[in-house]
Every structure is written in C-alpha cells, then in structure tokens.
C-alpha cells in the first residue's frame, strides 16, 4: 500500500492498530519525495534522517504501550517561514539562506508535544509575498496537477507537497489567501483560522495584522485535527485570543439541514472564470439539495479590498522586514566600508524584486504627508469591510464564494503583476476582517482542481468545517490524486 497517499487520520488508525509503523510511513514519504521532488520542488529543506529518528522514537513509544496523539509519527511539512530549531528557516529568501532559528514557533512546540514528525520546510513566495511561489529565491514549486502551472502561493510548497504525496499534512500561513488559494490550485483542503485563533509567535511576520498560520491537508478531518493541535491562546502572542478551543473534529457532522449559506454577489462578478463559476453553481445546488438554505448577500466594499490590502500589508511589511539588516543574522555584504553601508548593501542584495517593491510601497504609504491619504484611509475602509461581513452574517451562517476566480495558471512569468494582485479579491477581504475561511475541492475545470471557499463568523470555524465536511463526504473530489503531468 502507498502510505504516502493516506490521510493523517487513516494513518493514525493504522498506527493505533499497529498495522504499520511510523518508520514504514516515513520511509514511504521519503521515497516519494526522492521520486517526485525534482519535478515538484516543494521543499527548501528535506530532513529525512531527523524524520526517521523521530519515527523510530514514536514506534518505540507505541511499542511501550503509549497511546499516540493524533499527529504522532505522521510526517508533516512546514512552510519555511515558521521557526523550527534544527532546520534553517529561509523564507525562500537569499536574506535567510543560511539562517538557523534559535527557538521553536509556538505551533511547532505544540506539534512537538504531540510527537509529530517534521519532514522538511516548504517553498513560499519570498517572505510570503506572492501568490505563485515564483518569487522564491530557490526557484518556484510546480503544480502536481500540471507541472507547467503554478501551485499558487504563497504557501505553494506546502500545498504542492500534499498534492504530490510528499507529506501527509502541512502548515501554511495566510495573509491574503496564501493557504486557501494554493489549496484551491492543487486540490487540497486549506484553512485560515480566525485571526488570533493560532499564535503567530515564530512565524516570520509579513503583515502582522493579517498573518495567520493554518493547515493544508488532504481532507477536512485532517484540517480539523491539525487545527486542534495548533490552536489556542499563547502568552507570547498578545493578539492570540484568550478563548476556549473546541474539539474541531466534533464539528464534523454530515448535516447542513437548515444552514443558511450566503452567496456574496460581488464575488461572482466580472473576472470569474465561467468554468469556475459553473463548478461553484453546482456546489451550491448540491448544498441546497442537502437541505441548506441559500441566500444572496452583499459585501458592498469588496471592490476596495485589494487596494486596501496593498496599502496595509506593505506598510506593516516595511517595518517587519526592517530587522533584516545584516547586523545580527542573515545575509551580509562583507565589502561595505561602514555599518550604514553594510545595512544598505545587505538589504539591496538580500531581498528579491517583489519584496523590495512592497517595502517601497509600504514606506511610501506611511511617509509624512501620505499617511492620511493612504494608510489611515485604508484602515477606515478595513472597518467598512469588516462591517460588510457583520451585516451579511445577520442573514446567513456562512458564506460560499470562489477561493480564486481562476484555476492554476502557467508558470511562465507572463501574468501581469497587477492582474495577479487582483486575483486575490475573494480571499483578501477575509483577512482584512480577521474571519475564518476554508478552501475545499469542489470539482474540476479542464482537469484542474477548483476550490470552494467557505467563510465563517468570527471564531466560528466549526460551522464552516461542518459544511465543508458535509460537502466533501458527498463527493470524491478530494480523493483524486494529482497526476504529475505536463512539462
């Protein structure tokens, strides 16, 4: 049996029943990586030796009669902007090419507590700035459905690893759609929890008020299992929310009867690929057939979301990325004559074009004389966008929308940068409002996966997990393996 194709919950059962060992499973995943990684390029760093050692430890624990935690002994891939001691954290940037973090991210500590396995670190757009992994300093990841296409991004490596069988579960981070959009492009489940549900401590900050860590998995149940482990308040992250964390797997009931699903009309407008639209219309009909009530709602400020995001996110990024100056760690220009020259040269050479573009954008919108016109205005619009959602949720329990208006596009660098920014129109508002969102496979368009996005109320991951699970269990889209074709 090809263990690398299984879900985490299936593998957990097999480990419990001692049908398999963690070492066998880890070997299966490592062999798969060996076989396909040269095509997919999901990983910046693969650590099979460390993984096997951890697997042997878990096998011994199980042999000694200990009951393994849900993710114990099951190899996962971590986006390379999340700190793990013992592995470098590059953010797919030349700036951090050889950077070894001195501490574990909060989510990593929690996962270590479950004796899980970290098999490697996955590609992202440099510092998570992008939607295709093309801005990675170490070359792009490829979409396992068609290697000529992008896997999406910025968590493209984590999504590609799941789709290609190179990991069982993975973590991504989502600032404007960076978990959901690659999940959509690669036929995975990707969840962005409510802002504050998961600690950001140890996730290299891109835009602090928008970033959120979340799972990318093969099915909804695995997403709930990973979320169970990583969620919860953290004393090291003031923005993590001091609220009870439910057992998200308990929300997974096949039942949407009476559930009110809102369709935000602005998300179905111009720019939506008709084939994607058709897949979503079918999904809506399925929900209706399963007993859900469909209502149309409006999020009137949607058209301002992308521009608002491209003010707030670069503004925060311009400060967050200021620490990469060659002084304490990271890339340093050794020829510079003085400290100020060294800092300038290190940043000029250590950052790629997209990162520098966004730092300049952010610096500009915060500059004296422009702050009110840009940053302050954007913060006001952000409030309006949040209110749009509050208003919509008076009429429905969750929203159903495209994750991306398009399917995966070619990896040829020919996309217009502004057009690519605008493609995030369905995911960005969710980050601006701090709400939970999940992308689940909803069908195919021309043989490529189409993701459906479900958006929930603040802290109501359970409703969207339940709706996602109900849909998923009624279909087989998530069970289709990527063919690794093209090229």
């Amino acid at each position, binding site marked *: 049996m090809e263990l690398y194709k299984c879900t985490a919950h299936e593998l957990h059962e097999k480990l419990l029943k001692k049908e398999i060992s963690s070492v066998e499973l880890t070997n299966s995943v490592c062999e798969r990586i060996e076989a396909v990684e040269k095509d997919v390029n999901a990983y910046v760093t693969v650590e099979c030796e460390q993984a096997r050692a951890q697997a042997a430890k878990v096998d011994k624990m199980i042999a000694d009669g200990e009951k393994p935690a849900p993710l114990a002994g099951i190899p996962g891939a971590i986006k390379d*902007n999340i700190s793990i001691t013992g592995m470098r954290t590059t953010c797919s940037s030349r700036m951090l090419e050889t950077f070894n973090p001195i501490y574990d991210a909060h989510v990593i500590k929690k996962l270590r507590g479950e004796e899980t396995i970290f098999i490697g670190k996955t590609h992202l757009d440099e510092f998570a700035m992008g939607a295709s992994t093309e801005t990675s300093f170490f070359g792009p990841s490829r979409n396992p459905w068609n290697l000529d296409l992008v896997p999406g991004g910025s968590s493209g490596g984590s999504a590609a690893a799941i789709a290609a069988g190179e990991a069982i579960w993975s973590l991504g981070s989502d600032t404007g759609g960076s978990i959901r959009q690659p999940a959509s492009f690669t036929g995975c489940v990707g969840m962005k929890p409510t802002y504050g549900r998961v600690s950001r401590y140890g996730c*290299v900050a891109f835009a602090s008020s928008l970033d959120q860590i979340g799972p990318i998995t093969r099915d909804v149940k695995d997403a709930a299992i990973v979320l169970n482990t990583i969620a919860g308040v953290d*004393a090291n992250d003031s*923005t993590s929310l001091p609220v009870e964390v439910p057992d998200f797997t308990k929300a997974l009931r096949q039942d949407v009867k009476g559930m009110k699903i809102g369709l935000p009309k602005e998300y179905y407008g111009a720019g939506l690929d008709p084939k994607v639209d058709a897949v979503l219309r079918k999904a809506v009909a399925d929900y209706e057939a399963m007993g859900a009530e469909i209502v149309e709602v409006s999020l009137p400020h949607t058209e301002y979301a992308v521009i608002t995001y491209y003010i707030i996110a670069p*503004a925060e990024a311009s400060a967050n990325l200021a*620490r990469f100056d060659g002084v304490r760690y990271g890339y340093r220009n050794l020829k510079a004559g003085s*400290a100020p020259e060294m800092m300038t040269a290190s940043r000029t050479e250590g950052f790629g074009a997209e990162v520098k573009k966004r730092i300049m954008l952010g610096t500009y919108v915060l500059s004296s004389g422009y*702050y009110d016109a840009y940053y302050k205005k954007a913060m006001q619009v952000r409030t309006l966008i949040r209110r749009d959602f509050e208003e919509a949720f008076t009429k429905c329990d969750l929203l159903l929308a495209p994750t991306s208006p398009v399917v995966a596009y070619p990896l040829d660098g020919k996309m217009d940068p502004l057009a690519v920014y605008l493609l995030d129109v369905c995911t960005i508002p969710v980050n601006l409002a701090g709400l939970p969102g999940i992308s689940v496979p909803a069908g195919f368009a021309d043989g490529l996966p189409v993701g459906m996005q479900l958006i929930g109320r603040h802290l109501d991951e359970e409703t969207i997990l339940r709706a996602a699970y109900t849909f998923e269990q009624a279909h087989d889209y998530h069970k289709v393996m990527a063919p690794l074709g093209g090229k």
Partner: protein
Amino acid sequence: MKYTTVIGLEVHSELKTKSKAFCSCSTEFGGAPNTHVCPVCLGMPGALPVLNRQVVEFAIRTGLALDCEIKKFNKFDRKNYFYPDLSKNYQISQFDKPICEQGHIDIEVDGNTKRIGITRIHMEEDAGKLVHSGATIKSSDSSAVDYNRAGVPLIEIVSEPDMRSSAEARAYLAKLKAILEYTDVSDCKMQEGSLRCDANISVMPEGSSEFGTRAEIKNLNSFRALERAIEYEVQRQIELIEDGGTVVQETRTWDDAKGMTLSMRSKEEAHDYRYFPEPDLVPVEIDDAWIARVKSELPELPAARKARLMKEKGLVDYDAENIVAVKAMAEYFDEAAKHTDDAKGIANWMLGDVSAYLNSENVTIEDFPIAPANLGEMVNLINKGVLSSKLAKKVFAEMLKTNKEPKVLVKELGLEQISDEGAIVKIVEETLAENPQSVADYKAGKDRALGFLVGQIMKKSRGKANPEMVNNLLKEKMR
C-alpha cells in the same frame, strides 16, 4: 538688543522594572554584553512583543506624581528608523496618544516659585549600545553592539517651552529627577544613562511673544552639561542673529570636551519616522480602579516632604529644599535625625561637609561611609560640649575612614574636650602668668589681646579646652 531664552526639555528615564518592556529579560545594568537577551529583544524573525504591565503602572505613577491627566485608552506605535543598536529597526513607542498629558512641576529659582508645564509622558523601549572602533559610526571599520539595554522600558517626559534660563532648566530637571526617585520608578543615574535629557532651545527679542527657531540639543548627560550647553547655545544663537544670520531648525549635539554644540542634522535631513499603530500589541485600557489604586499607593513626594521637614524638624526653607532634592539624602537625613534632637545641626552638616565630601569624591549619598546614626551622635557630642566644632571636623574626617562611633573615636584620638573647670583654670592661670604684656593690653582696652590669649590656651590644651569656658574664665581672671 536684549533676548529672552525659551527652553523646553525632553527627558528620557529608564524605568526600574525587573524585566524588559516587551520580554522577560532582566533589565539589570552592567551584565556581560548580550547576556540579557532573547529572541524578542534581539528582533529575531517571528518573535513578538508582550507588554510588561508594570511599565504602565510606573507610567501612571509618574503621571499622577506630576499632576497629569491619565489617558484611559492606550496603544503603542512603531517608530521606524534604521540604526544597528535598534534590533527591529523600529522602536515600539507611543505616538499620538501618550499615556499622560497636561501635568506640571513647580520649581523655585532665586526664591521665586514658577510652574513648568508638562506636555506629555509616553512609554517606549530603549535601544542597545554601540561601541565603534573609530570616532563615529560612519568612520569606523567595525562597531560592536550590546543588546542588554534593548527593550528596557523608558518614559519620555516632554515639558512645555516654559523655562527661560539655564538655572530654571536645571531646577526643573532636579525637581523632576527627585520626583522620579521618590516615586521609585527610576534610578535616575545620569552617568549610567538611566536619565537622559535633550533640550529645545530658542531665543527671541525681549518682549516678543513669538518664539524663535529652535535647535534641539542632544547628549546632555549631566546637570553641568545641561547648563553649559544652554548657555553656549543661547550665546551662539544670539551672536548668529546679531551678525545678521538666522537660526535654522536642526538637531545639535553637545560636545562636553569642546564645550560647544555641533550640528548633527538639519530639518531636511530629519528622520521621517513613519509612525503607525503597532499591530503586534493590543490596546491597553486603564480603568478608574487602577488609577485610584496607584494614587492611593503614591509615596510622599518632595514637596510634601519639604513641608514636613520645615514643620516637624524646624528646618528653614532653603535647607529643607536642598535636603529633599535627592531622595537618598532625605532618607539619610531622616535616619540621622532619629539620633538627635538637633535636626538643624544634621542639616548643616549634610549641606556642608557631607555634600563637600560627596562632590569631591564624586560619589552619591548611598556610598557615603558614615552611618546616619554616627552623624547624629556626633552632632549630640558637639551640643553637649564634648566636641568643639574644630575637633568635630577631625572626628568627621576619621569617621570617613573608619565609620567608627564618634564616642569611640573621641577616646581613641584623645580629642575629648576639656570641660573640667579646675583643669582649665590651671591652664588659664599659667598662660596669664606667662603673658603679662597681653594682660596689660587687654586691661588697656585692646580686645585683640583676648584672642591672642585664647589662642595660647588652646595651643597648650592641644585644642581640647572648651573654648566657651576658656573665654569666660579668661575674662573673669582679668577683671
């Protein structure tokens, strides 16, 4: 033309919390470089700040002690600038909503009381320390950074431009320092950098109501530097204007060795700090109960202590003002005064010989070798006539070396004053017999002869004869 000087001060004070403002590292001064650091204060990727609420508590306490309005809604902002001692290349500070506003301090200069307004107090974090191989960062081949200080909490206290002379600025800073010490929020050690001062200085024609263009003077690390810098800068600006020039708005630094202010950067070169709300921290709400509790726990402040010393200890205004100016001095005074009824005598010694010693040795009262009880006892011995004031100085000098009890020293040194009438009469009679001419002179009305005779007697007694008794007996014998 005559000019009026306008001065406003910005004072940075390190708060003496046990841990840093946004992480749990120690704030202790003087550790080996980069030993009080962690991912947060080193600005490691992914690390996040968490507010130490003691910082807010201390800021509230300071605000209340300075009669400020305490703002209930508090947020932090990022102040962006690149410098290698700033680990994140932004400083977490407060921009448009400081925690305290509209306070004041009453100062006294030349017997006049004047109220100096306080515009605002805000909370922020300190940066690390740089050691350059050369004179400046730009001319150095290498620079070393110590991040132990990075993240230590600071409050910045900004005054109104209400001061009109270096003396007023000094009085304001002294009073502010005293209040910060009394409220126990800061060590206020200027030499260690836990109290730092910048001055905004301008001049305008006397009688004008429109302030001149100001220069901001940095690097004022002592009271003396503050006074000298103000005097230099005022003179520089006046000369510039008199020569037909104009003062430009700029930042200047005080060069203590050269005794002059030097231009650092012009208004055009000034940083654009690009402040925006710190997204990694949540706003802090201060409720009435918190403010009320801090108010109820506020310790006695200098003004109240001064009033108490005048009322209960009978000190005169000037003495009381100077005793309370430094909290540790006031505490020393209180302790010493427990051992004698002559509080005034304690005050005289403290403002005289004790202060002279502290100045000459460049130490603070905390390091003064004589225990307060021993100073009190010494004052008692003087008042009882056991010690003359001249001998007391000898005992004082010896106590500085040994801190032995004055009674013990008096015996050890054989300094006990001779107050035995019989013994003194014997010396007086001997002296009179040896100096008939002086006796005759005295009797002829030459008062100076008396002094000579007293001197002879003191010489014979090796300074130990009670001078009052010597005087009386001499006069009696020559009547």
